């Protein structure tokens, strides 16, 4: 559990830094949408945040960290899931970071409901795929 606790603490610190520093919620969905609104100067912080996020991978590996990625190679599954996650987080105004970390941290009832909903939907999806068999 050590790495999970350390990683989660870093995520909380990053979110706290962004809030105390510039008063912004570190939600990936908002960051993603902001990348398409670069004419809006008030959203430029998101480009900086996104750049920092991208730098994490090369720096982590340079420091000797290991970051395995094990997932399906089924392209139909990848595209369907990507579309659902992209559209769903836009429609629901947030994902694991915006609702799950920041919203729950603010004790927002809306975010708690959203988080319970997407976790339950995720659990049901994995359970159904296991029942159908072989969809890994």
């Amino acid at each position, binding site marked *: 559990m050590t790495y999970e606790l350390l990683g989660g603490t870093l995520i909380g610190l990053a979110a706290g830094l962004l*809030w105390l520093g510039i008063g912004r919620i570190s939600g990936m969905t908002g960051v993603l949408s902001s990348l398409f609104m670069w004419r809006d100067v008030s959203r430029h912080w998101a480009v900086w945040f996104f750049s*920092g996020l991208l730098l*994490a991978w090369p720096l982590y590996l340079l420091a000797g960290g290991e970051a395995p990625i094990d997932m*399906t190679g089924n392209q139909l599954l990848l595209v369907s899931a990507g579309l659902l996650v992209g559209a769903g987080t836009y429609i629901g105004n947030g994902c694991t970071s915006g609702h799950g970390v920041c919203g*729950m941290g603010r004790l*927002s009832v809306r975010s708690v409901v959203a988080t319970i*909903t997407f976790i339950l939907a995720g659990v049901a999806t*994995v359970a159904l795929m*296991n029942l159908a068999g072989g969809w890994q």
Partner: protein
Amino acid sequence: MKHPQQYAGNLTALGSGLIFGLGLLLSGMNNPAKVRAFLDVFGHWQPELIAVMGSAVVVFALAFQFSKQRRTPLWADDFHKPTLTQIDARLLTGAAMFGVGWGLVGLCPGPALVNIFSLDPDILLFVAALLMGNRLAHRLAGPAK
């Protein structure tokens, strides 16, 4: 001319993104198999990832409580507190769609983005679909009010 405060703000956002990404990598949240095992409650459940969200929520909650003693952030004029509070069909539909997609592959937006520099073609395909889904919803549904 840019105000020095703006440079500090941009640097803060860059640093926050970097620390956020390192947290995702260190915790293993970036690995789809690990996320799917966390969601596999009725199968071979591996609940460790709950510690990631738990510790992140607690640390951010402390920062948020502390911020209430301040009128403004350190390097900006306002705290941009989210204004939406309603629990409606739109919220539930979006969250459910996201949850299904999350369960299918095991990637949510943050980990998908932090994995971009792995240059794994499957990750890049997922990210392309993620961006397309975001824009499609923007076109068809528009921003929530």
